[in-house]
């Protein structure tokens, strides 16, 4: 169990790290898409099948297309997809910031004792292994998700619908305004 988690984590972190450090923009985008696959694999490992397939459908199927089209539409020639080197000082300070944030979060996680979170009928294990490993996996069938969406979270569903419509219309309006001098791009 944990071995699979470590494998998925290593794959996702590696692809994400390489994606954000490459010079070639298209390769960066494609590696990030691979890291989204890794995250979907984590969802499958945790037993949330519906979320995993939704992640693939939305991110890999749609957001990836938006990103790739944006990359292709914001360049003047093929050479523009290879970006020049960024400022090293800013990169170093960014790495220090990122590592500091991860350090703070990591220390907080390791120091917290996730106590008995399961129902009271789970007996404590001798030998001191954490209780979190004996909690049985919850199952969220599609029926449960549907019922929850329509009853408890119905308002949120409608708001999300409005938000997506507004975002779609806004994106179309923003990206579709043709200036009079915008026609000299060559692929």
């Amino acid at each position: 169990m944990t071995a699979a988690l470590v494998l998925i984590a290593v794959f996702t972190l590696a692809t994400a790290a390489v994606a954000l450090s490459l010079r070639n923009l298209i390769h960066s985008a494609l590696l990030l898409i691979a890291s989204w696959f890794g995250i979907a694999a984590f969802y499958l490992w945790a037993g949330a099948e519906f979320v995993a397939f939704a992640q693939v459908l939305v991110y890999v199927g749609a957001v990836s297309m938006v990103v790739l089209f944006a990359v292709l539409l914001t360049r003047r020639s093929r050479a523009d997809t290879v970006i020049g080197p960024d400022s090293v000082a800013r990169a170093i300070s960014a790495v220090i910031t990122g590592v500091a944030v991860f350090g703070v979060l990591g220390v907080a996680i390791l120091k917290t004792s996730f106590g008995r979170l399961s129902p009271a009928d789970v007996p404590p294990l001798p030998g001191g292994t954490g209780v979190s490993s004996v909690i049985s996996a919850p199952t969220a069938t599609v029926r449960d998700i549907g019922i929850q969406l329509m009853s408890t979270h119905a308002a949120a569903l409608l708001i999300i619908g409005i938000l997506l419509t507004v975002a779609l219309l806004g994106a179309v309006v923003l990206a579709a305004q043709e200036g009079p001098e915008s026609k000299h791009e060559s692929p």
Partner: protein
Amino acid sequence: MSLDPLPLCLLFSSALFGLGLIGALARSNTILVLLGIELMLNAANLNFIAFWRYGPATSPATGVMFVMFSIAVAAAEAAVGLALIIAVYRHQKTIRLQEANRLKG
């Protein structure tokens, strides 16, 4: 390294968040900054699913609900962000963040 699955998952998502933060801060290409932000959103979703799997069972699908809405919002935000990038590109013909400083004092 602890062997509990829950701290491992949380460390994984924190590491991913840190990577997204580094990406968003260090690169000067706007699209890569946006991809870093997407990565941070995904890391937060990982957190939700980790606690849904190993946390107290309040209702069977709350964690999943959060993640569904988060994915929807992240997709909408990516679409709007990239449309903004295209619109900015039309004016300044590059997408380097440092070039977008016309309002600088």
